[in-house]
Each structure stands twice: as structure tokens, then as C-alpha cells.
């Protein structure tokens, strides 16, 4: 799970000075600049493959079709491609996130009943700024606002599970179909698991001090943001996230490149193939204590898939690593009794196992 840039804000600023700033936004300039940068981005992006071939086979004179050639070209193509995709998406999400704050999400969900609430909560889980250490205050805020427990869990499951970085990397490395599968199944697991937890009526398994929390007025501090502020938040997100994960991305792609060039086809088929029925639950169990951010796990996923691992098994492994993390459970222990944490892990784990089998059967 990724510590997200903290963009949700609540500080009030005098409205008068805001109005002045808004007027001074040079819209023409900003628009032209944005369009130009995007065209440039697109032009570079479309030339990455021929350029990587040129570098590998002409400039470095590596033999075409050789193991080394495959590995080097893979690395030289994938690294800039993924970094460019990542930068663009993180920026867009950073700007988008400035429209969503935890406060606003909470207010929005407060009026929702179960079912519809589960669906909304799972979707808001993707766009609301969230990091694992803010899980507890967020949980308290939801409880205090009277949001049903199941709806709260839909949010808490979706927020780490459907990760924008994982989504971009899956799209860049494995194509839009796998990315879409991940997005849809992640959302569905969050909705259904939250709904099931709601049905079980486990409110008494929340720690006592949380239940005694006075149902008073939660603090809402809204800050008016101009478009320039939002663009700033996008830039900040890029600095924050891309600056932190690029090492993992490069390392992951290097491992992927090595496997791509040197490990024989179908090597993983025996261990993580469709025929090994036990591989899906095993992948989930192995994934729980592993705590990696999405950027590190996706290139590994790609490598596993390339060598004959089944899609369902690999997806299950990835979801387990990012959605069921030990550190988050330890943090949640402060507000949830152990029984409820066990139910949480059980329900989400079953959902992931089910998804894994489903894809192994379909694909």
C-alpha cells in the first residue's frame, strides 16, 4: 500500500484573496502549455520501441534474437515507458484527488444505506487520498458519522486494493484487459466483502472506546482551491510518488528483463499453473505477510505470467500482497477486536481465492 500524498485539506483561507487569485489564472497560457506538453509526451511515448531497438541492436550492437538482446531491449523499452505512464497518471490522479477529501467522502457516505453505500464506498476508495496510517482516524470518523460498518469496510478494502499505480503498471506491461480485470474484480471484492461483513452484524466487535465516541459534530474545514492549486497538487503527487517508487520500478523491470531473456518458457507452469489447484490459496497465504508496494509487485507479476503462471493465481497473489497487509492489521487492532480482524481477513481472502479460481477457469 502506498502512502498517498496528503492533498485532502481542510484549511480555511479568506475568500476575498481567493477571488483575486482566481482572476489572475492565465487560462490561455496554462491551456496551451498543457496541450503542448501532452503532444510532446505522446510523440516521445510512440517512439520508445523503435528507439530501444536502435539502442540495443545498432548502437550497442547486441545480436538480434539473442538472450542478452531480448533482455536489454526489454529493459530499455519498458523502463521509460512505465515511468512516462506513471508520471502522467500520477499527475492526473493528483489533480483529481484535490476534488476528494476524506471529510467530503465521509459526509457523502453518511447519508447512504447499505448496498448502494457499499458500491459508492468502494468507488470512493479509489479516488480518496488515503494511506495505511490514516486508516484508524478515518475509521473513527466513519463510525462517528454513523456510516454502517459494512460500508466502512468496503472503503477500507478498496482503498489499498485498487491502487492507481498497480493499474497503470498492469496496463503498461500487460495490456488493458488485465488492467480492467484487476480494477473490476478489486471493486467487486470490496463491495461484496463489505456487504457480507455488514450482514454479519459485528458492530459489537469494535473496540469499546470507539463505540463510546461521542456522536457529536465532526470537524469540517473546507478550503477553496483554485485550478492552479490543483495543478500544484498534481505536481506534488508526481514529486512524491514517482520520486519514491522509481527505484522499485527500475529494479522490478530489471528482474523482469532477466527472466524475459533467460528463464525458460513454462518454468512457472508447474508451480503456479492452472493444474495446481492448491496454488491459488497458497498464493494468498504467502502474500499476506509480504508487504510490498504495487510498484514493486507488478513487474514480478509480469515475469511470472510470462513464464507460464496462470493469470488467476498471479492476480490472487498480487491482491493478497497489497490488500491484506500485516502492518495495516496491526494498526486496525487499535479499533477492532481480534475476532473482527479475523473475519475481515477471512472474507477478503475468500473473495481473492474465489477470483483466482474464476480466472483460472475462464482464461
Amino acid at each position, binding site marked *: 500500500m502506498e*502512502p498517498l500524498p*496528503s*492533498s*485532502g*485539506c*481542510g*484549511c480555511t483561507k479568506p475568500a476575498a484573496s481567493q477571488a483575486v487569485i482566481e482572476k489572475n489564472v492565465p487560462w490561455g497560457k496554462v491551456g496551451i502549455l498543457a496541450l503542448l506538453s501532452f503532444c510532446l509526451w505522446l510523440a516521445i511515448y510512440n517512439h520508445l520501441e523503435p528507439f530501444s531497438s536502435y539502442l540495443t541492436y545498432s548502437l550497442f550492437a547486441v545480436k538480434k534474437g539473442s538472450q542478452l538482446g531480448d533482455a536489454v531491449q526489454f529493459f530499455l523499452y519498458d523502463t521509460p515507458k512505465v515511468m512516462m505512464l506513471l508520471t502522467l497518471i500520477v499527475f492526473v490522479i493528483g489533480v483529481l484527488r484535490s476534488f476528494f*477529501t*476524506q*471529510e467530503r467522502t*465521509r459526509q457523502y457516505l453518511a447519508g447512504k444505506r447499505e448496498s448502494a453505500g457499499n458500491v459508492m464506498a468502494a468507488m470512493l476508495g479509489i479516488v480518496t*487520498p488515503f*494511506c*495505511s*496510517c*490514516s486508516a*484508524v*482516524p*478515518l475509521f*473513527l*470518523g466513519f463510525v*462517528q458519522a454513523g456510516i454502517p460498518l459494512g460500508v466502512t469496510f468496503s472503503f477500507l478494502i478498496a482503498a489499498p486494493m485498487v491502487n492507481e499505480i498497480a493499474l497503470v503498471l498492469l496496463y503498461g506491461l500487460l495490456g488493458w484487459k488485465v488492467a480492467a480485470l484487476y480494477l473490476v474484480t478489486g471493486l467487486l471484492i470490496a463491495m461484496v466483502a463489505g456487504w457480507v461483513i455488514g450482514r454479519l452484524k459485528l458492530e459489537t466487535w469494535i473496540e469499546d*472506546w470507539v463505540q463510546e*465516541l461521542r456522536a*457529536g*459534530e*465532526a*470537524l469540517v*474545514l473546507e478550503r477553496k482551491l483554485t485550478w492552479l492549486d490543483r495543478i500544484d497538487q498534481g505536481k506534488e503527487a508526481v514529486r512524491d510518488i514517482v520520486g519514491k517508487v522509481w527505484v522499485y520500478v527500475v529494479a522490478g523491470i530489471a528482474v523482469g528483463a532477466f527472466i524475459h531473456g533467460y528463464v525458460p518458457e513454462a518454468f512457472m507452469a508447474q508451480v503456479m499453473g492452472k493444474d495446481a489447484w492448491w496454488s491459488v490459496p497458497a498464493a494468498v497465504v504467502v502474500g499476506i505477510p509480504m508487504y510490498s508496494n504495487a510498484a514493486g509487485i507488478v513487474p514480478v507479476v509480469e515475469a511470472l505470467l510470462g513464464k507460464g503462471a496462470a493469470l488467476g493465481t498471479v492476480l490472487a497473489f498480487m491482491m493478497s500482497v497489497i490488500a491484506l497487509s500485516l502492518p495495516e492489521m496491526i*494498526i486496525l487492532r*487499535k*479499533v477492532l477486536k481480534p475476532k473482527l480482524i479475523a473475519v475481515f481477513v477471512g472474507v477478503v481472502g475468500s473473495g481473492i481465492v474465489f477470483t483466482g479460481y474464476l480466472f483460472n477457469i475462464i482464461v
Partner: protein
Amino acid sequence: MEIKVCGPGCASCEKTQKVVEAAVAAKGKEVSVIKIKDFQEIAQLGVFSTPAVVVDGQVKCVGRVPKQNEVEDWIG
């Protein structure tokens, strides 16, 4: 004057702590900066997203790292 920095101790909370300390140093006033890590205590302040900054009992900012000049404004 007393400033409370609320947060369990993640990267953003540490950053907030540093920003507040820098602002206090820049202002050169007598300000005690207190870290609050206990969730129960944080919740009782009416704060449900971290990091948050509370100046003399008044919540100034929740769910983000403030800029140094903002904090200086709050110090006055």
C-alpha cells in the same frame, strides 16, 4: 502558545512536525510543540484524518501537510 501535531507517526506526520518546527524557529516565539500519537486523544479533538495541526486548541488543518508560511500565519 501551544501547537499540537496529531498523527500516528507516518511519513506525512513527520514532515508536518518538521514544517511546524521550522515555522516556530522562523518566528522566534515561545511556542511549545507537542506530538500527539494516541488515536483516542486525536479523535477527541474532533480530528478524523491525519496529519492535523492544532494551535491553542483550535484545529487549523486536517489531512495534509501544511506549508510553512501557513503555519507562520497561524502563529501570528
